[in-house]
């Protein structure tokens, strides 16, 4: 039972990372109905950007006191901004021109962008795993036989905080309202004076920035990354978004945590090798039995 609770903690922190990535998938899918295959690679790029910023700051070991807050703020915000801009550039280059083309076209450019990003990262940091410095002091708390690491708490907290900020933004600001309107009906939104291109670019900015934050968190959590990391993580995060109900922000969060738990439990009770297979089977089962996800409304086929 202790093992179960330990994996519960591990799964939740893993899920925090997936939730942050899933938010980006679900936002983009919600607004332009495109599976942005490059999103997982933007997440990996976030880890590499964070690493570059830490190197620039000259930080390669644990930081204490007020300096820690400064370092964290600069690194996370820096990674978020750089990833956000990458997302906007991807949308501008690969998706905007194809907005009225058959569905197949932007999906193919999305897979192409994913390949391009992966291979640019391969050039940048090479094919082997790259170590990520432990910046945060990591005290561990014992709860009976279960240990909770400080970084696990940070992952979950950061995910929940960013999620609440996002929810507030989307439901309580003018720009958020513009995003929801565009998601519902692009033409009608345009007639109401909403600049669709800016709104969609904003969606990519926010979604990719969240992936950047997830990238930092994953570097901190795992202590390393490699150029191909985003492929598997992206697949799992997309599964999370579908599980929660695609287009639904709270659903992406819920789905992320559930996928994290499923992965942790599979690793513990079945085998590490099968975790991808199990997560993928979840995706197929959800799509067959409840394609609208846990919290989503069913999407009608637009004519």
């Amino acid at each position, binding site marked *: 039972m202790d093992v179960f609770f330990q994996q519960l903690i591990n799964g939740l922190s893993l899920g925090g990372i997936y939730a942050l990535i899933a938010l980006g998938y679900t936002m983009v899918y919600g607004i332009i*109905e*495109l*599976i942005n*295959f490059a999103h997982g690679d933007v997440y990996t790029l976030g880890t590499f950007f964070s690493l570059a910023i830490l190197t620039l700051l000259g930080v390669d070991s644990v930081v204490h006191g007020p300096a820690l807050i400064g370092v964290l703020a600069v690194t996370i915000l820096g990674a978020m901004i750089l990833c956000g801009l990458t997302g906007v550039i991807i949308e501008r*280059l*690969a998706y905007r*021109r*194809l*907005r*009225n*083309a*058959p*569905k*197949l*076209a*932007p*999906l*193919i*450019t999305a*897979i*192409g*962008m*994913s*390949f*391009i990003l*992966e*291979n*640019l990262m*391969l*050039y940048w940091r090479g094919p082997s795993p790259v170590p990520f410095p432990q910046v945060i002091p990591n005290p561990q708390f014992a709860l009976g036989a279960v240990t909770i690491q400080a970084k696990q708490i940070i992952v979950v907290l950061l995910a929940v905080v960013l999620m609440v900020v996002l929810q507030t933004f989307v439901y309580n600001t003018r720009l958020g309202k513009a995003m929801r309107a565009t998601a519902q009906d692009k033409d009608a939104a345009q007639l109401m004076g909403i600049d669709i291109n800016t709104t969609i670019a904003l969606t990519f900015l926010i979604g990719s920035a969240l992936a950047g934050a997830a990238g930092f968190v994953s570097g901190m959590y795992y202590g390393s990354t490699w150029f191909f990391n985003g*492929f*598997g993580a992206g*697949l799992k995060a*997309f*599964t999370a978004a*579908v599980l929660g109900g695609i287009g639904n922000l709270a659903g992406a969060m819920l789905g992320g945590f559930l996928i994290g738990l499923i992965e942790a439990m599979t690793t513990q009770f079945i*085998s590490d*090798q*099968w975790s*991808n*297979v199990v997560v*993928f089977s979840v*995706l*197929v089962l959800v*799509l*067959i039995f409840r*394609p609208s996800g846990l919290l989503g409304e069913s*999407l009608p*086929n637009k*004519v």
Partner: protein
Amino acid sequence: MRLIAPLTARLPPALRTPRAGTALAFAAALALPFIGRNGAFTNFLADAGAFVLLALGLNIVVGFAGLLDLGYAAFFAIGSYSYAMLASPQFGIHLPFWVLLFVASAIAAIFGILLGAPTLRLRGDYLAIVTLGFGEIVPQTFLNLSQWTGGPNGIGSLDQPVLFGYRFGFNPLPYYLMVLGLIALAAWLANNLRTSRLGRAWMAIREDELAAAHMGINTTSTKLAAFAMGASFSGLAGCALASKLQLVSPDQFMFNVSVFVLAMLVLGGMGNIPGVIVGSLILSALERFILPQTTNFMHNVGLNVDLTNSRFLIYGVILVTMMLFRPEGLIPSRQRKAELHAGQADRRAAAAEGELLTEVIH
């Protein structure tokens, strides 16, 4: 086509038909290894031929039916492993190659149906991600089930085909001729399917699924047929390549392979059989000759650039730039070209309408 039009115009009418072009291309392909008389070149042709088969198969799914399959390599893997398990010392089973050719493509087709049946009812873009996941777990499963599949080492010393007592051995020539035969069969089959009732149903679904359904097409079973047919071609390719390499291992079937084949279609022209064949040959040649040669040249000039590492980057760039600027491919099918530019025509029409409106308002 426009480029060679002045040349073909001088030919007698009998030689200007597509049939004559096909016969000419086939004759040239048949003569190629005998002109070259170069073992390495024939070897390349045999490998490239297997990928032409894959491209022809994926073309049915992506080009004809318009379904994005991102895990096509999984069916290739299933075909290859079927051959490996039934014609090797692994289990001591040694069925003849020619029988397994059909068995492997049937098994691949069955897996196509098994994956397709639950998922093809879904929205098209979900299919892309499901096939992506499938493409990921199939090699993973072959890797994990090491007691049957040899794990990361794969299965080796596969049987070589024997035809009327002639053993194929290690000479690439008989493999090439066999692959050429399979390509001819596959291209003939694909071309006949294209104009058949089923083929027209595929294209109707590709153009507008909702409209097709309302015209009485059973979209699920029609899409399933495309999936199964495409998968069966990869079973042929799997058998051919596995018997030639005498080895299968999980790393031959990773996601890269699916994207490699997809890039062949996008480059050559989705939905157009000659285009797909040409696109496939260009990319195979790029991988085997053009990149290593250019790298050599760069080294000789004093530039230390290794282009052989950038082939996946090039596939990514091909996918993006082709879809943006020439989505119909280098050798387009006329119908597909019209469809892929339909969005632009709509936009142009909408823009013109907008101007008209503003004129009216003012």
